[in-house]
């Protein structure tokens, strides 16, 4: 407008038109803002294309996600690992454009240092609200949440380590980790090639913190582990292989077993493999979906993660993996067998399921990993080196 309004003759038509425009604009503002994505509304993005997945077999949850994949025309190309270290090894060695990885919470400091993790855009994952409160608290145990409140991973499943055994050979199983050291099990114990897992479990059993273990105290761990590996004839390269040994009758029980092995064995036709947590407890692992720095399909991955946190979906996932749920409402949706794995309803632990899980995590904690450099505590590389020595000397 070139003249001040009151000096220009307005026609009725013009006035109407101008007020109409204003109304239109004002009314359109929220829609426009929302369309620009800068609004308060969080929404899962559109999914499409291929997700290049790198992690454990099973964690790409093919069956539970089938209909979502079909509905969104998403294809998942999976590369499976035998042990956790392959993830960082593959990504650092120019391993292509992986879009989706998982990581055990203990690996967070290492992965941040290696530059593998990107910040998750929690706005694109509205279902994050569905998680149990214990997973959303920004406390030190929840390694996936930064000091700045940024999330680098989303918990979608968790479990606890236990003794996995062949019930046909050993009815009832064993109650203590120390039972595995009994001479009658010589050559019959399964051990897996997972240095961090073995270290963390042993540290827990001996009452120590694996993420801050004074170097002088490592001797106890070495002693225990040497005895345990001495009870084994072979160090399995993967959980699947350890399960194969169990089914073939080469071993009867596993140190550092995992309930998923029950499902693996069932898949191969053997229903006798069971897992339970001994009296000394164990450590819990929380596996987090993460978006690596190499991803080129970030939105679809966020949509995937969001979908994994839908209550029905999370329940289906837990049943598929023989694992636990991270979504509060899912606890009521899982079948009896899956529910029996963990104390969702154990009144002694707390009043609500959320409280009970929080208590459980005090008993079977989420541990961190040894630091990459330290003068006082044993480091990640030292721990890995020592594991090689233990395997040879046992």
């Amino acid at each position, binding site marked *: 407008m070139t003249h001040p309004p009151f000096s220009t003759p307005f026609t009725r038509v013009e006035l109407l038109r101008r007020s109409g425009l204003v109304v239109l604009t004002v009314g359109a503002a929220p829609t426009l803002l929302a369309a620009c994505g800068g609004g308060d509304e969080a929404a899962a993005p559109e999914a499409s294309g291929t997700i290049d997945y790198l992690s454990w077999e099973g964690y790409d949850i093919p069956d539970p996600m089938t209909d979502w994949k079909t509905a969104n025309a998403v294809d998942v190309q999976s590369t499976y690992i035998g*042990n956790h*270290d*392959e993830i*960082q*090894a*593959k990504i*650092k*060695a120019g391993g292509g454009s992986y879009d989706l990885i998982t990581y055990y919470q203990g690996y967070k400091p*290492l992965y941040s*240092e*290696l530059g593998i993790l990107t910040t998750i855009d929690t706005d694109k994952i509205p279902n994050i609200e569905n998680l149990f409160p214990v997973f959303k608290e920004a406390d030190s145990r929840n390694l996936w949440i930064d000091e700045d409140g940024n999330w680098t991973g989303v918990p979608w499943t968790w479990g606890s380590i236990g003794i996995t055994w062949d019930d046909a050979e050993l009815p009832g199983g064993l109650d203590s980790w120390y039972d595995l050291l009994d001479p009658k099990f010589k*050559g019959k114990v399964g051990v897996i090639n997972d240095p961090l897992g073995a270290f963390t479990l042993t540290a827990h059993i001996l009452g120590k913190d694996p993420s801050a273990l004074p170097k002088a105290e490592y001797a106890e761990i070495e002693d225990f582990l040497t005895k345990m*590996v001495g009870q*084994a*004839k*072979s*160090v399995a*390269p993967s959980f699947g*292989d350890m399960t194969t040994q169990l089914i*073939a*009758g*080469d071993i009867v029980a596993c140190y550092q077993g995992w309930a998923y092995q029950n499902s693996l064995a069932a898949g191969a036709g053997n229903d006798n493999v069971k897992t339970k947590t001994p009296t000394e407890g164990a450590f819990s692992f929380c596996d987090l979906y993460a978006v690596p720095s190499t991803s080129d399909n970030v939105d679809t991955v966020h949509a995937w993660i969001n979908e994994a946190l839908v209550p029905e979906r999370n329940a289906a996932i837990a049943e598929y993996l023989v694992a636990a749920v991270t979504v509060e409402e899912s606890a009521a949706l899982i079948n009896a067998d899956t529910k029996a794995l963990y104390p969702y309803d154990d009144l002694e632990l707390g009043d609500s399921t959320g409280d009970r899980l929080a208590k459980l995590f005090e008993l079977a904690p989420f541990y961190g990993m040894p630091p*990459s450099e330290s003068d006082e505590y044993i480091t*990640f*590389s030292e721990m*890995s*080196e020592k594991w*090689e*020595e233990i*395997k*040879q000397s*046992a």
Partner: protein
Amino acid sequence: MTSVTESRPPSERDRLRIGPVALALPAAAWMLAFFAAPLVVFLVYSFLTAKLYDVSGPLTLEAYRDAVTTEVNRTLAVNSLVVGVCVAAATVAIGLPIAYWLRFAAGRWQVLVLFLITATFFASYLVRIYAWRSILGENGLLNSGLERLGILDEPLGFLLYNRFSVSVALVHIFLPYVVLVLYAGFRPISPALVEAAQDLGANAFARWRRVVLPLIAAPAATSFVLVFVLAAADYVTPQFLGGTDGALLGVRIQAALTGSGNWPLGAALSFLMLAAFLSCYALTVILLRALRLHRIRFVS
């Protein structure tokens, strides 16, 4: 070249000479780019400093020192040596009679049996590994068979997850290869020679010692060293069949690369192993030359 060539116009002669190099060039370039160069780069890496899943900085002998002073590596190296020698010896010892039979006693069956034996060369490396597990395991074919026949009461636990099972699988893998090499070595030898020895009164042992072995020494020695090298550096068989007793150095090297991300250590171990292998090859050549067994030719 003969005089015929020299009488051709100069331009044609030159074309003939440039030709071979140009023909070999693409393949040579590929091998230089993707075989020679990577080895050189890898060698350089063995002198770099390791950082977590990365390398950096100044050239150092740290990795080599690490490789040599760690006791685990020495144990694994010894394991690899022992298994390598046993496997090589077994394959050659079994391969020699087979090649002999094929060449001198098989007659019409030569082609078929040779095909059958060498065909197993292609029976997938991985397949054999777990096939032997299902044979040697406590509930495997061998143990259940022997128990069924009443020969055993308890399964034999020492068949699997040790150097023995690793060696058996490796012999299974390399035997066809050795048979082929030895058979090729036997081909130019005339059966008349062996017959002559027989006619002159030599028994089987003497025939072997004085006639066959000297003729076959070179191919036998070459295949021995080749199998030794390939067996000692195997990294998959020990993981599934070796247990804690039968671990080999190759597994450690592979773990350093794809597991703990310590590339300089993996490189140092690799080149130390390579140096050992090259010495073996050199030693074999020297030995053969010294015994004057390296160049025996017979017209068949």
